């Protein structure tokens, strides 16, 4: 076919036992803007990383204009005219824009900063960017960094540009500017692939949309024929009846009252923006949202691991009705107040567990100080470990085998098992079933339900909407660090959630 720029043929990529992409075959046309749409973890970035030479496929191959090519590293990709702007910018902070532009190019040429500045200006003028060649990257805003990355790719003569979540970090105005640039690039006959999960942007900018779901290629449709609803359906799949048990909420009262919670990251970007909600005892509160929209910060701020801006408040109410302010307290202080807060963090082996330790040693992570004397209590963690191993059927050679050697599902069972064993009154989980097989996932749902019945306030941050809708009593949607809506889990519609997640609130209001 004449107008095919790039084809993927049965491309497969595995990481250990996890299949990130399975048998993906698709075509990308010359001069089109293709949106690659999919939920978190659907394998979009991994797929594109194989085009840009970061990863090497385990199976299948890639064709450029009908000819089979082998992309071993980014240099090969450049030579073929493929350039990618990664979500995590590949820039050197202490270098200027001009220096970043030319890294890796013609090492024998003179380093003529004026000449580079001139090329930058030329590209900027052609597409409508503004880049100051002498500005150091650490002084740049996120949008400036992104512009620089795009100029970098263009400077390298890319004809096919891959942009990974380019708008995730931009304001609406900056997004508009970016789209203008992308249209200019299309006019210049460049092929642009945008990885995204924001439907409104897909509809606004793309010519065609390719959809990935759970590592598999679903379909490519012309944008003109698509609607937000039809795309959502393809992206999230048909509503699957999961048959997750959901009991009625009994004797509920406010356990956790979060009000005006805001926090910023080290770059000064607002990660949580005036978040207020209440979590009740005996219910499961789901938190939906595209990952990176403040979920991590929310849970960590409540757990005392993330400093919050002044004015933020998290009030915990115990069985006796006594209130405690949690903001400004360290995790050990919170525990000393008698607040039984359990937290299953997203980073299981980097925060929740110590990978190099066995199950038994991990069981005592939070209460190793228990008991007098200098020695740790070795017996009860072992007992607990055995109990967790039996009850949750953890597959491990032994309770002293380092947990990093266990499979993802078993690692999670260890972590959840420990947190539940602490008899919490609030249980927060972040992506509790990510990467787990069906059976393990159901085990986790069941465990959460048991906690709910015991009167625990469960906060469940999740990404699978089907699960959220069947498991949770209420679903709070986060978008850009703000609460974009709180829906009843029993009546919520999938489309409605999808729209709230992708920031198309007006569509819901209408």
């Amino acid at each position: 076919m004449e107008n095919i720029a790039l084809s993927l043929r049965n491309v497969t990529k595995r990481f250990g036992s996890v299949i990130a992409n399975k048998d993906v075959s698709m075509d990308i046309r010359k001069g089109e803007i293709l949106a690659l749409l999919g939920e978190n973890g659907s394998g979009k970035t991994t797929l594109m990383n194989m085009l840009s030479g970061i990863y090497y496929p385990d199976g299948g191959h890639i064709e450029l204009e009908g000819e089979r090519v082998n992309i071993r590293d980014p240099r090969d990709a450049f030579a073929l005219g493929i350039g990618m702007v990664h979500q995590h910018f590949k820039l050197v902070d202490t270098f200027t824009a001009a220096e970043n532009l030319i890294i890796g190019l013609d090492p024998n040429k003179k380093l003529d900063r004026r000449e580079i500045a001139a090329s930058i200006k030329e590209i900027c003028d052609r597409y409508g960017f503004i880049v100051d060649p002498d500005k150091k990257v650490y002084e740049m805003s996120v949008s400036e960094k992104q512009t620089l990355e795009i100029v970098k790719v263009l400077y390298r003569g890319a004809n096919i540009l891959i942009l990974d979540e380019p708008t995730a970090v931009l304001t609406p105005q900056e997004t508009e500017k970016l789209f203008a640039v992308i249209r200019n690039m299309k006019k210049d006959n460049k092929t642009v692939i945008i990885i995204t999960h924001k439907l409104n942007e897909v509809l606004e900018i793309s010519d065609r949309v390719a959809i990935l779901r759970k590592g598999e290629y679903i379909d490519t449709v012309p944008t003109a024929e698509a609607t937000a609803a039809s795309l959502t359906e393809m992206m999230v799949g048909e509503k699957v009846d999961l048959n997750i048990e959901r009991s009625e909420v009994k004797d509920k009262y406010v356990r956790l009252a979060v009000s005006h919670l805001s926090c910023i990251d080290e770059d000064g970007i607002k990660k949580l923006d005036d978040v207020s909600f209440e979590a009740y005892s005996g219910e499961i509160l789901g938190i939906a949202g595209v990952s990176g929209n403040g979920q991590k910060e929310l849970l960590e701020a409540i757990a005392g691991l993330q400093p919050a801006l002044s004015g933020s408040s998290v009030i915990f109410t115990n069985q006796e009705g006594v209130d405690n302010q949690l903001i400004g307290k360290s995790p050990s202080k919170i525990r000393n107040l008698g607040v039984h807060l359990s937290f299953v963090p997203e980073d299981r082996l980097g925060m929740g567990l110590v990978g190099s330790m066995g199950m038994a040693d991990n069981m005592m992570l939070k209460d190793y100080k228990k008991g007098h004397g200098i020695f740790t209590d070795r017996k009860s963690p072992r007992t607990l470990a055995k109990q967790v191993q039996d009850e949750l059927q953890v597959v491990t050679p032994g309770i002293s085998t380092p947990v990093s050697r266990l499979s993802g599902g078993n690692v999670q069972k260890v972590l959840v098992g420990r947190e539940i064993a602490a008899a919490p009154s609030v249980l927060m989980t972040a992506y509790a079933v990510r990467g787990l097989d069906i059976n393990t996932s159901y085990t986790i749902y069941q465990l959460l339900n048991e906690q709910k019945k015991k009167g625990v306030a469960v906060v469940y941050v999740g990404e699978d909407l089907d699960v959220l809708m069947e498991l949770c009593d209420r679903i709070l949607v986060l978008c850009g660090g703000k609460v974009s809506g709180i829906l009843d889990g029993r009546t919520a519609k999938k489309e409605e959630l999808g729209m709230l997640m992708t920031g198309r609130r007006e569509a819901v209001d209408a």
Partner: protein
Amino acid sequence: MHNSREPWLRVAKRDGMSFPKRLAVRLGAVLISLLVCGIVIYAITGINPVEVYSTMVSGAFGTRTRLWSTLKEAALLSCIAIGLAPAFKMRFWNIGAEGQVLIGGMITAGCMIYLSALPAWLLFLCMFAGSVVAGAIWGLLPAVFKAKWNTNETLFTLMMNYVAIQLTSFFVAKWENPYGSNTVGIINQQGQEGWFPMIFSTRYFISLVLVLVLSVLMFIYLKYTKHGYEISVVGASENTARYAGMQVGKVTIRTMLLSGGICGLAGFMAVAGASHTISVSTAGGKGFTAIIVAWLAKFNSFTMLLISLLLAFLEGGAKEIASKCKLNDYASQMVTGIILFFILGSEFFINYRLVFRKSEKEGSGK
């Protein structure tokens, strides 16, 4: 372009290796390195390899004196490694053992010189306490700055070595005996105040027992105590430590006090238990070697004893060969370096595996 093939060799992470296999890799590395050392020595001296090894064995263990001397060296090295283990387990790069040992030794020598009139038990108590405190202070300084301002501890501790060396030089010049020799000479040669007593007709017995006791204590400390648990968690991930409610700065400071203190104690043993003098070479580079010992042993005290013994054997053996051929003692350091390279390199094969290019038929698609 399209002709290029998949890279012929890739490196992939291993999921974990069984204990016997790991042991085999490490023993293999030691054996190959011994072989290489034999060849190197043969190339330099012309002694045939079999004779090289037998000379080394007799040099290190051949007589009672040699055996005890080897044990003493091993004990001293293990003692420092035991001191370093908690720091390194916490991933605190304490390169300053050399200085911590020296400062401990210096205080010991000072006590022996100035307090020789005290009753023996009090003298020993002063020596012991003084050396531990001095070493602990040397460990404390970099730890405080690390905890408060994240000052790079590798270079801080390294510089502290030289502060200790100069301080020692100062006192060596002050205490020199006889005048003008610029050495301290044997302290208390007459009355032997502050010398470890002879037991089983060796002066090294007490050091050996001390180190064995220490290694058991350290093993227990790291494995079974709350402090040890905190050290492991902080070393594995500061994020996890904070999640668990630990105060990372406090753990850092406390652990370095301990680490420096034990290194100071090693100085006490080196002076009171062996040399009975003090000079800038009292630590003799053991502070650096011990880092590698602790690292290679994965902070297990008993493995440290074994590695120290291996290195002490090499040292004694190489010295014997050197003296036989009228060459100098530094041969042992050279040999030590070679062994360390091999053991360090062998870790790769435990953590990674090599993937060679798949055969052509699979590469060509369907």
